[in-house]
């Protein structure tokens, strides 16, 4: 199986450890992984802020870069949803048949990491070891657009040593929302504060999610408030072992 990683621009630039964890994890499970270096960004920031007309080159780049793989795996529910839901729309708007065909060919091969593990590889126990209390925030786009369901928590439950604590109000938005955090700072901070309070209240040492941008927002807040809770991407926990702990 030819698995390509779409690491996403945020992870590539700010959270390389998440990408490294994905590589380690998938190789441990016997996959041959490839990072096509031509990849850049899915265009979500442009699309969601109202500059969707500018993303045609990014859609084209994505379709070209990832053509021909059996699976494209990404550690971001939000970027995965952008590709699945909006790249076809952007291609249709460009009125370019060839582009629309290329996008239509690549979209069904795109998987969020947890989807790929559970649905394609058929594993729910990835052989990880992480002896900590963890609470899981499903993140809006992972939950509502990618419909990851209980795949991530099933994977976490099978991690040796890990105690999964339920997050109250888990299905509520953390308030990040891309440029929303900058355009509506007060409301965004109020939403984040509630999420942080709920997370800290579980007694967890780690707040886990499948989207580093939400974790950046929440982690920055917990850091500022010195809650002592740290954030970790799901991939990093799943890649964690006794020899190489996260």
């Amino acid at each position, binding site marked *: 199986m030819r698995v390509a990683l779409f690491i996403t621009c945020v992870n590539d630039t700010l959270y390389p450890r998440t*990408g490294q964890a994905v590589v380690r994890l998938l190789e441990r499970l016997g996959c041959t992984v490839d990072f*096509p270096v031509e990849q850049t960004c899915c265009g979500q920031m442009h699309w969601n802020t109202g500059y969707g007309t500018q993303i045609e080159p990014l859609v084209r780049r994505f379709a070209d870069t990832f053509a021909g793989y059996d699976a494209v795996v990404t550690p971001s529910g939000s970027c995965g949803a952008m590709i699945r839901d909006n790249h076809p729309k952007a291609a249709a708007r460009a009125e370019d048949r060839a582009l629309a065909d290329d996008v239509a060919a690549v979209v069904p091969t795109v998987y969020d990491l947890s989807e790929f593990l559970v649905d394609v590889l058929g594993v729910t126990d990835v052989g990880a070891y992480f002896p900590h209390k963890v609470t899981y925030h499903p993140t809006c786009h992972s939950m509502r657009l990618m419909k990851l369901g209980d795949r991530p928590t099933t994977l976490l439950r099978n991690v040796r040593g890990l105690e999964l604590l339920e997050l109250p109000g888990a299905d509520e938005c953390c308030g990040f929302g891309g440029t929303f955090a900058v355009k509506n700072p007060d409301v965004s901070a109020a939403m984040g504060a509630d999420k942080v309070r709920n997370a800290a209240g579980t007694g967890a040492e780690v707040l886990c999610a499948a989207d580093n941008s939400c974790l950046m927002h929440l982690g920055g807040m917990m850091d500022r408030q010195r809650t002592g809770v740290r954030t970790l991407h799901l991939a990093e926990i799943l890649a964690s072992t006794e020899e190489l702990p996260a």
Partner: protein
Amino acid sequence: MTGTFLGMPPFPEAAHDAVNNAQLRHNLRKATHTIRGKRAAVVDELDDWPQLRAAGKAIKDHTLRHLDRYLIQVEEAVTAAGGHVHWAADADEANRIVTDLVRATGERDVVKVKSMATQEIGLNEALADAGIRAYETDLAELIVQLGDDRPSHILVPAIHRNRSEIREIFLREMAEWGEPAPADLTDEPRVLAEAARRHLRERFLSAKVAVSGANFMVAETGTLVVVESEGNGRMCLTLPETLISVVGIEKVVPTWADLEVFLQLLPRSSTGERMNPYTSTWTGVTPGDGPQDFHLVLLDNGRTHVLADEVGRQTLRCIRCSACLNVCPVYERAGGHAYGSVYPGPIGAILTPQLRGTASALDASLPYASSLCGACYDVCPVAIDIPEVLVHLREQVTEQPGHRAERAAMKAAGWVFADPSRLSRVQRLAGHTRRLIPKRLPGPGAAWTDTRNIPEPPAQSFRDWWAQERGSDGSPRRDDA
């Protein structure tokens, strides 16, 4: 009189005050979470909810596609049943029509029920200018009117008030409008409701003219439908001699069989009830029974403009159930007033800028009053993809002047992403200069650093790590077998 929304500041500014008002946030949180739970429970007990929702969407889409035909059918049926139909292109025309109709009766008072459309056009203010006093009869509307306040929720316009505030408003204002509140009024809901009931009863019994809205119009018979919980609607619809209904043109459904779908979708979505307490229907006039003079004012006021927009037109499917408000995390913190419109919350964030345009700073800020979390789309009983319409409206807003800096920043980002080697150079620069990045950012970044620490760029990007681990030329390890 009910304050207007004119001259309100953009959403983020208006929200700033609400976010910092602990009492308001507490009231809103409590109310929205209660109704949210009730809705979820009654929706969960139906195993055909997805089919009902799909049916609601399909009926509305079909009707909107043939709106001209169904509206003419409504007009013919209402006229045949002895009513009169008036077409109003905008707020001014609608207000003029209603004012003239009331004037013709010689009355100076009207009772009102259930009409967001009249709030949208500012009818109460227009009537006041003509020396006519309009009395709201929904309990929550009454609270808003007496408090010289603005509505902050579609279904519960006084959601931002708690019961002790309501008690004070009743004690202070009721006497000026009619039957005063009893001196020993407590803040018990039952006692407050009783005071309102007595105050209103006097109104109903003396009113000769009523103004109503409608939840639906059934085209095949020209029947109007009001769905309500308090019974005040029934009083307004039956006691007066003249009834004037102001209804948005999107409220039509073709047949009674179609209505059945919405009578299931609406109460469950709005009040979390299986069925609403009062459903009233009326068709023209019936000699010797109810109002003998009936007028239907069909209101456009921007709706045909919304209809012409391929992405935006789904907004007109809205049945004003308010489920989207009750699940919206932004509404819950910002409160209804921040939206500067009678339509607050997620639906307001898309409906208002479509009806009014995005020229004002407030209207241009509304499409951004969402984190695009999608909770509104999930609960909407007619499946309006609110996030999709928000993004669509953002595209219109960014084409207006005033977005130069942002447009330039987006262009620059696009330029970086257009070429992996550019992205790589930017990443290395960030990695090398990470110690220089200040803890407090200037400009729009300040919003971030005021409440959050910014992440420190790593020394090495993922792609540089990959190149280092898997070959300095970055050539990927391929399994072409």
